[in-house]
């Protein structure tokens, strides 16, 4: 019962579901899958980049390939029908997970958050934006939205605006009020910052968008995996996230969109699966969400995505959030013990489960290389928030990010490894 007393989730039981956490690292990397020469235990703290995949999800994917692998919506044969039911149900399951009452019609499967963003930018933005219009983002936007809207704005003549981030790493909501005005057609904001860990008031921002008749697009890549999310409570018009950051496989993500908006939008990709009827002259489109899923979709990944959502629901997203917050606060406090460490973003008791920082004397890339030599996997770089790093005055930072299987001992291992780097560079 020790574990249940000290953590909001049963970490030991969860770790047993993730065989990869048992492996060692440090050997030859040119032979992926062969681990004979690895000798350093893995401490995986790069979960904001991608999470690991539990056996239950891998099993669901194996069951699909072994049991009912087939193309969907095409065959009348038995396998195709089973695959179609599973793939369609996966949409409903993911919709339920994020509180989308419209079910599958409001959830489009995409490759990832980035593609979800591009889908709206191309299918809606290219048609609807023009000179005199503005898209409002935040200074802490991930490149997935920042670059996408920036480039669509260039194509359409629209203007992009960025809500200021204050010294504590929070959004300046007064500035938001100034920026969101009658010219604004889209407010695209990140829910949980993948660099600062800030949890943004997205519901308030959505209200501000709606007051001026704009849409609100929430980038939920870091929020859906780590906390309960209800897109209808937020009142987001669009919401994007990735399966691979929430125990699911790579190659699948989702775009939530309010049904009436998705219905008005034109397709983004054309081809098979998304059409109702085709002549040499013209075509008509399938119903939602298939209108936006051209070509053979990621069927196994969709099945795995639904299994990932089942897995997280079994743990309970409130518990996932509590565990994330516990580790974030612990890491914030431990890193905060050192005068030569600068931590970015809001205080430890008010952030998502990640901490980005810099060590005075050691470049982030040197630090991550040295941590890697000790088995500690963290991220160094700009984490796809280059303009934010420019603003922070740091070319790069080091980021530790946590998930349901991480422990305080792993945070301690990070601190010890940082000590070693400090010593080496002294």
């Amino acid at each position, binding site marked *: 019962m020790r574990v249940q007393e000290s953590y909001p989730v049963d970490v030991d039981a969860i770790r047993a579901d993730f065989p990869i956490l048992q492996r060692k690292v440090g050997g030859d*990397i040119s032979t992926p899958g062969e681990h004979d020469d690895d000798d350093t235990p893995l401490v995986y703290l790069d979960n904001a980049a991608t999470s690991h995949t539990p056996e239950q999800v891998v099993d669901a994917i194996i069951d699909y390939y072994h049991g009912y692998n087939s193309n969907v919506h095409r065959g009348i044969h038995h396998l195709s029908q089973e695959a179609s039911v599973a793939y369609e149900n996966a949409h409903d399951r993911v919709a339920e997970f994020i509180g989308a009452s419209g079910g599958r019609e409001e959830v489009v499967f995409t490759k990832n958050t980035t593609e979800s963003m591009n889908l709206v930018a191309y299918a809606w933005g290219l048609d609807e934006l023009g000179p005199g219009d503005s898209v409002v983002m935040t200074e802490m936007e991930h490149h997935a939205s920042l670059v996408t809207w920036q480039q669509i704005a260039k194509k359409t003549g629209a203007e992009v605006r960025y809500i200021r981030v204050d010294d504590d790493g929070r959004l300046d909501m007064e500035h938001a009020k100034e920026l969101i005005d009658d010219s604004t057609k889209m407010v695209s904001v990140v829910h949980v910052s993948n660099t600062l860990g800030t949890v943004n008031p997205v519901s308030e921002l959505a209200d501000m968008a709606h007051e001026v008749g704009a849409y609100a697009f929430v980038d939920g890549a870091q929020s859906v995996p780590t906390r309960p999310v209800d897109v209808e409570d937020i009142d987001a018009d669009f919401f994007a996230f990735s399966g691979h950051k929430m125990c699911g496989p790579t190659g699948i993500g989702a775009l939530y969109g309010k049904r009436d908006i998705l219905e008005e939008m034109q397709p983004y990709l054309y081809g098979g699966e998304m059409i109702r009827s085709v002549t040499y002259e013209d075509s008509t489109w399938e119903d939602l969400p298939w209108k936006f899923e051209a070509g053979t979709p990621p069927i196994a990944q969709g099945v795995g995505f639904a299994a990932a959502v089942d897995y997280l629901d079994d743990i309970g997203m409130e518990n996932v959030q509590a565990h994330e917050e516990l580790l974030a606060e612990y890491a914030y406090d431990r890193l905060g013990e050192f005068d030569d460490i600068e931590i970015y973003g809001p205080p430890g008791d008010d952030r998502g489960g990640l901490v980005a920082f810099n060590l005075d004397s*050691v*470049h*982030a*890339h*040197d630090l991550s*290389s*040295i941590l*890697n*030599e*000790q088995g500690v996997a963290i991220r160094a*770089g*700009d*984490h*796809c928030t*280059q303009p934010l790093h420019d603003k922070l005055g*740091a*070319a*790069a930072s080091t980021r530790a990010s946590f998930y349901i299987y991480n422990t305080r001992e792993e945070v301690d291992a990070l601190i010890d490894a940082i000590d*070693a*780097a400090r*010593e*080496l*560079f002294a």
Partner: protein
Amino acid sequence: MGIGSDMYRQQIMDHYKNPRNHGRLESPTFTHTGENPSCGDTITMDVQLADDGETIERVAFSGDGCAISQASASMLTQRLPGTTLSELEAMDTDDITEMLGVDISPMRIKCAVLARQVAQDGAKIHDGEIEIEQTKTEDGDD
């Protein structure tokens, strides 16, 4: 750890902490600057040629960045004098890892080769082969 580190062997740390030929030359034949946009590593190489216009006589570097990029630049300033521009041109990544004497992990190669790239581009600009303001290594970081 110290001695246990694979990439940060004594030689690298020594060049990083006590960079050789660090600073600027008084009258370089050519000067060039480059950066790794994602890491923020920057390096300026000053190169002075002998009267034959082909043999490298002196090299100095200045810059800022990770230990691998700066140590690599420092070592290069010792390595290049006495070689010719065409020998510089022929230097490849293997030559750099050999010079560093450690295995550089794939993600860090661009740090290791920045100085060489800057020197090579500087030479090409000097020869009128290319026209660029600055060397930028590919942004492989996400």
